[in-house]
């Protein structure tokens, strides 16, 4: 009983951490964009205000059960993926222990898709053509970036003969190195794929403000949008943590985690700030050129 309570509280702590960090990262991103555009920009806690406001909206409109459940799918995906990622190295701090022993990379890759599909279903239910257009763009783009991402993951798994994240982290601890140095090509491919994963500019055709309204979330407002924003924040944290765990040797404590994830987070943000938007097929072909090439190199590197 105790252990279950312990685990639950640990899980809750992880979620809170992820939520907070993700939210702040979002705020920081807005701030960075603002500064680069020579603006003052909103306060970095602006995203909290947005989310709380969204939750506190009185009415919420939905077009049917799937729209109601779509954000739930999304949040389920992010929280579950979070549950299966080791947040800190080794034993870490006891309340950040979670279920990471029961899943591996392949599972995680699939779990991360769960949310997009659920959200897509919710968006589909609304009947707004913009939502559907956004979804098709998002899914198409996903096919693009998942391939180099999985290639780099496969390269790592192949190189170190383990498919679990904990296993990869242990290897990094034992060999006292980061996998981004052991297999640089994998890291490059993964980072390039990560650009797409975050759906930031130039790969923001999914939401494409001013083009397809806001894409999948066109009809979502109030608590639904709030839930989606929360899920997005957690998800951003999940992705960053995954990358840190896999490529950068994980983190021994929270500060290290924050620093590493933030450093990583800057890549898509900064790349995005200065980039215009790719069209969907351009995005796909983008991912299927250099990232794919690096992915193949990574696997070759791993297998020889």
């Amino acid at each position, binding site marked *: 009983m105790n252990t279950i309570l312990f685990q639950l509280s640990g899980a809750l702590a992880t979620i809170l951490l992820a939520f907070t960090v993700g939210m702040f990262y979002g705020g920081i991103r*807005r701030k960075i964009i*603002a500064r680069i*555009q*020579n*603006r*003052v*920009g*909103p*306060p970095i806690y*602006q995203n909290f*205000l*947005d989310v*709380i*406001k969204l939750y*506190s*909206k*009185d*009415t*919420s*409109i939905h077009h049917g059960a799937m729209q109601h459940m779509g954000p739930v799918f999304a949040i389920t995906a992010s929280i579950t993926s979070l549950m299966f990622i080791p947040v800190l190295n080794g034993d870490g701090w006891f309340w950040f222990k979670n279920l990471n022993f029961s899943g591996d990379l392949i599972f995680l890759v699939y779990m991360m898709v769960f949310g997009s599909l659920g959200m897509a279903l919710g968006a589909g239910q609304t009947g707004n053509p913009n939502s559907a257009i956004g979804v098709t763009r998002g899914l198409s783009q996903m096919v693009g970036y998942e391939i180099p991402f999985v290639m780099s993951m496969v390269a790592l798994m192949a190189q170190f003969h383990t498919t679990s994240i904990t296993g990869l982290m242990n290897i990094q601890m034992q060999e006292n190195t980061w996998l981004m140095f052991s297999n640089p090509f994998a890291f490059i491919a993964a980072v390039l794929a990560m650009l797409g994963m975050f759906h930031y500019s130039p790969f923001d055709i999914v939401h494409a*403000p*001013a083009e397809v*309204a*806001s894409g999948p*979330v*066109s*009809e*979502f*407002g*109030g608590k639904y*949008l709030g839930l989606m924003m929360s899920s997005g924040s957690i998800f951003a944290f999940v992705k960053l943590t995954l990358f840190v765990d896999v490529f950068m040797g994980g983190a021994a404590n929270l500060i290290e985690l924050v620093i590493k994830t933030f450093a990583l987070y800057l890549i898509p943000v900064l790349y995005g700030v200065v980039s215009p938007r790719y069209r969907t097929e351009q995005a796909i072909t983008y991912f299927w050129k250099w990232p794919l090439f690096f992915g193949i190199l990574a696997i070759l590197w791993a297998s020889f």
Partner: protein
Amino acid sequence: MYNDNNAQTIVEYIKNFTRKNSLFMLAYGTGCGAIELPATLTSRYDAERLGVRGAATPRQADLLLITGYLSTKTLKRVIRVYEQMQDPKYVIGFGSCTINGGMYWDSYNTIKLLDKYIPVDVYINGCMPRPESVIAGFKELQRLIAEGKADGATKYKENLDWYRENQKKVLKNWPLVEYNW
């Protein structure tokens, strides 16, 4: 139906605080006033520092910004958009046209006073109002929200019959489906 003397509870205070600092704005660029918004939002005046940011659809928006005159044709769309927004929601009438028709005061197909058709929380006058006054308008709206006085939506619901009557006077062949309030 607000009461000045009622102190806000802490929850309401937080709610209002977040509401005022996170205004998702749906700019309905009906008239020439829309040209002032880019200036308001971009580097020089940077409305985002106040938490104001654009929203793509009425579902996500808190604030409806009516920038300029409304012809009867656009009125029905504005009503539609307003009704699609989720509570709490606020309306800013932007420019003289929304107050008295402005330079279209004698036009046969523009409405003269927006407040007769949808409840306006804040008017920003001027033709065009400069970004400074727009920001002042936002500030005013934020003040109202913080004090819990920006309750146009409530008014609209309570006096729906009156609003409908006015709307129907202008809009022949009532085009809207009755909204399921």
